[in-house]
């Protein structure tokens, strides 16, 4: 089976959020990045498990700059066979999905994984866009996936439950919690990752579907109103009359 996993970086969860260039660009000065957890913990590991079970290859792809190479090497250390980096700054989800699709379109991947979302921009868009561009079925938020004879049986999270579907490969699938268990790269993985192929390719041209983005910080919360344990009647009154939420 040929598997492709889309991976990207995201600021450490505790990173400071600030903007520059008139509040149009995220200011990453001094910020440490990590692999997006959905890509690393769930999408990549499930792909590796499928390969270990029935053979094949796992390729990771990233749209990014040379700074992302450390992250890509980490994915190789966890077990991916080879990596592609499209040398460009990801402008928006459509740009990213177009680059991934342009690479994947004549490679006959059986399954393309993305994470359910990036934890910085929280778009949840790239997977569906790839599926549309390549005209493939798309299952979002997969929390369980088995493959049997070219048919994927996928469980996806929906509001208040799960939905279990069968899909013929090839398909695109976005990975949610539950799909696999995080793997820590071992020493051998780290050593071999240095010699695994990382191919750098140029981006294709893509029209922009998003205009200039402006960022701001959320308004400060006003100070918390503290109450004592024996003031619960007062809390109920405040929730009713002041906050008007119950």
């Amino acid at each position, binding site marked *: 089976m040929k598997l492709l996993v889309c991976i990207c970086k995201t600021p450490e*969860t505790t990173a400071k959020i600030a*903007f520059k260039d008139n509040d149009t660009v995220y200011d990453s000065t001094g910020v440490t990045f990590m692999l997006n957890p959905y890509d690393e913990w769930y999408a990549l590991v499930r792909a590796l498990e499928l390969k270990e079970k029935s053979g094949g290859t796992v390729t990771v792809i990233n749209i990014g700059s040379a700074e992302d190479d450390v992250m890509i090497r980490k994915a190789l250390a966890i077990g991916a066979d080879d990596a592609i980096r499209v040398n460009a700054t990801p402008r928006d*989800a*459509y740009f990213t*999905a177009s680059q991934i699709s342009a690479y994947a379109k004549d490679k006959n991947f059986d399954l393309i994984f993305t994470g359910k979302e990036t*934890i910085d*921009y*929280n*778009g*949840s*868009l790239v*997977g*569906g*866009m790839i*599926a*549309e*561009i390549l*005209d493939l*079925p*798309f*299952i*979002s*938020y997969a929390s369980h996936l088995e493959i049997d004879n070219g048919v994927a049986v996928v469980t996806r*999270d929906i*509001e*208040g*439950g799960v*939905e*279990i*579907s*069968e*899909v013929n490969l090839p398909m695109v699938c976005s990975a949610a*919690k539950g799909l696999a268990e995080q793997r820590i790269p071992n020493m051998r993985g780290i050593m071999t990752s240095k010699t695994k192929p990382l191919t750098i390719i140029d981006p294709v041209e893509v*029209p*922009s*579907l*998003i*205009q*200039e*983005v*402006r*960022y*701001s910080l*959320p308004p400060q919360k006003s100070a*918390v*109103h*503290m*109450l*004592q*344990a024996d*003031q*619960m*009647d007062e*809390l*109920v*009154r405040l*929730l009713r009359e002041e*906050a008007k*939420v*119950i």
Partner: protein
Amino acid sequence: MVIVLTEQQQGRFKNASFTAITAGAKVAHELGTQCVALVIGKADDPAALGEYGASKVIHLDAPELESIDSKVYTTFISEVALREKAKLVIVSHTSTGKSLLGRLAVRLKGGFASGVSKIQVEGNKISITRSAFSGKAIENYVLSGDVGVVSLLPNATPALKDGGPCPVEKPDISMSGSSINVREVKRTDGRVPLPEANLVVSAGRGLKDPSNWGIIKSLAEVLGASTACSRPVADSGWRPHHEHVGQTGLAIRPNLYIAIGISGAIQHLAGVNNSKVIVVINKDPEAPFFKAADYGVCADLFEVVPKLTEALRKANGA
């Protein structure tokens, strides 16, 4: 035209759909056009969507539509959007809407935005507001292209009724070619699904032991709230995974979030800091959650929670 896709469960419209139509009708009004509700699958009383501001309902019902295949749905929604000369297509930011948004944006070559909390009209341009960086920043931009495609948060705005029923059209379109075969849908329980809940009671490791969950459940019952938990609570199997909120779990924005014995780690806050009102119950005055709270009680949860439940019960009875 502004087109709003509704969602139903066993024929009943979800609240998120009433919100989306209320918002769609407002945008349509500001653009000097109308709001069309697009209903796919079984639905009771689609004409009632007029009460929330739809001027017309397009209702396509066929048994094969009960399972949602993003490809089939995208084809249908795009056809309607083109025919109605849509300027904006709104879906809800739910598991269905999210699986459609990317496809729709590509198919319609439209400006897109996901998880939108506000849609504004400036001249004849549509701009959106959404939160990014897990609630730590607000993003604002104008949708480009001839048509915009957005997913709207289920509680972006209160649903408002101020009209009567509207006409329902049954289009002559057949949809086929689904490549996804839904075998079964398992519902976890009868409660309001967490992403749609207005009131949420949530507990963390401060609860000490899963056998103590009863006091959380009683509080939730008196309130009519759904329950949630922090990640360690789900990871250690005290509670099911679908109740885990935060950066790697669900992001929710209820009207009221009561956090009990949760420290308020940044990854937890990322999933709940858009809640309208936050109440924190924690015995540690230094717990970071108090900084994000509107109301705080610094005391032992085993004392406070039963008292709060009792106070609510009393207030409900009065």
